[in-house]
Every structure is written in C-alpha cells, then in structure tokens.
C-alpha cells in the first residue's frame, strides 16, 4: 500500500527523482502522486525539459578556436606568442 505524499514533499524531492536518486519507496509514492496531481505532473515535465535543454548545451556556444585562445596567457608566459 502506497502512503500519500504532499505536493510540498514532492517539490522537495523532485530534483532527486529526476536524477533517479530517490529510494524505491519514495519513488513509488511520488509516482502515485504524479498520476493524480496535474500541477506536480506539470512541474515534473517542465523541470525535466529544463534539465534536458541545459544538457543539450544549446545556450552555451563554444567560441571559435577556443582551443587556441584558452592558452593565450600561458603561451605568453612561456614566451610562445
């Protein structure tokens, strides 16, 4: 039998849930909650989407020739440039 969990508790654990680091009992309780709570379900989907988007690296453009420029100061100290 799955014991109910409150929305506040769900929000507290939602990041761990997304990372798969909650224990089984908590996970089951949260999943039962998501089935009946539209708000928390929306929060879960939205937060998952955020994590996916950030992981995509979409918002971080790597500058051209980063490989060279990141060593500019070191090169200078070593008398290379």
């Amino acid at each position, binding site marked *: 039998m799955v014991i109910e969990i409150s929305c506040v508790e769900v*929000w507290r654990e939602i990041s761990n849930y*997304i990372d798969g680091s909650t224990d089984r009992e908590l996970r089951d309780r949260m999943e039962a909650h998501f089935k009946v709570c539209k708000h928390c379900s929306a*929060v879960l989907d939205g937060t998952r989407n955020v994590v996916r988007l950030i992981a995509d690296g*979409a*918002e971080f453009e790597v500058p051209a020739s980063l490989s060279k420029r990141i060593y500019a100061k*070191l090169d200078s100290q070593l008398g290379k440039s």
Partner: protein
Amino acid sequence: MEDQLIDRCLGGDHEAFYELMRPYERAVYFAAVGVLHNPADAEEVAQEAVLKAFNNLSKFRREAKFSTWLIQITINEARMRFRKDRAHLYESIDERKTDEEGDYRPKDFADWRDIPSEELQRRELREALKRALVSLDPKYREVLVLRDVQHMSIIETAQVLGISEGLVKTRLLRARLQMRDALAPGIDGSWTTGRSEFKKVRPW
C-alpha cells in the same frame, strides 16, 4: 596517464601540460561562463585559470581528480572576477540573502491562457535559456552548470564548490525549479529543438 603527463610537466616538459588540459578545455570555459555568463569575461577567466593551474601544478594533491582541482581553480577565478565587477553594488555573492531554509514553491501554470507558440525557434529558445540562467542567483547557477552542463557527480560538485552534498542537492533543486518557472509555460508545453521533443502537458 594523467599522472605521467603531470610528472612530465613538473619535469619541465611544458607541452605535456597542453596535453593534460585538452580534455578539459570546454569544461573550464563552461564553468567560467556559468558563473559570469559574459563570454568575453569568461574567456579571460578561463585563460587565468589555465595559467594558474600550470603555475601551481606542483601543489596539486593527487588524491583528488585533476579535473576537480582544475574546475575549482576556474570557479574561484570566476567568483573573484564576479566580485570585482560588482564591487560597487550593494550586494555581493556572499551578502545576497537567499532563503535556503524554506521550501521553494514552483508556479502553477494550469490557468495560463496566453501560451506562447509551440513552434518556438531554436534561437528564441536559446535566448530564453540564457536570460533564465542570468536571472539565477550565482550560487544556484554554479551548481546547475556543474551538474547539468558539465555532468559532474553530486560528490564532485560538492568538492569543487567546497560545500556539502546535501547543499548541492538543495541548490540544484532550487536552480532547476527557478529555471522552470522562468521558462514555463512554454516548457511545460511542446518545444522542439530539432533534437529532442518535449512532452506536452496540456491539450493545446
């Protein structure tokens, strides 16, 4: 392998340092951008971090991972730069009051009528993400970048930032929920980036 490169470098073979750095160039840059979010400043900080790592290589204790040590240096450089840039402002990173005790309540968009177009362009999405990241408190942004961009473990993130694992998890939670609030309601809807499709929550 890395140990050999470090030994070689300490022995005077400077090229070994470049080889040692190669897998972490992007990580260093992204860590700097994560704290500063200004690409020009971030690049300068990244260069400083590389230089500092080279000059202090003899101080690197090999119980830790080289990448952890390197990113720690980068974060510290970035924070110093951040403080310097904002020295004239009232709030500093340390002074800013944020309530980490209370629960964060994510917004409910169930009644939102004005849902933006579901065909949000990739560029708009990138801009929205950038703005949302900028709006975060730096200490949340740092954790978010290390975990969700660099894919560092909780343990490693805690080591790099010098905080407990529990605090990493708390800050990560807040960072993710704040990002979602900043980006929703579009993010609870369906955005396609061309690479991933996002699950639609509401019927429209």
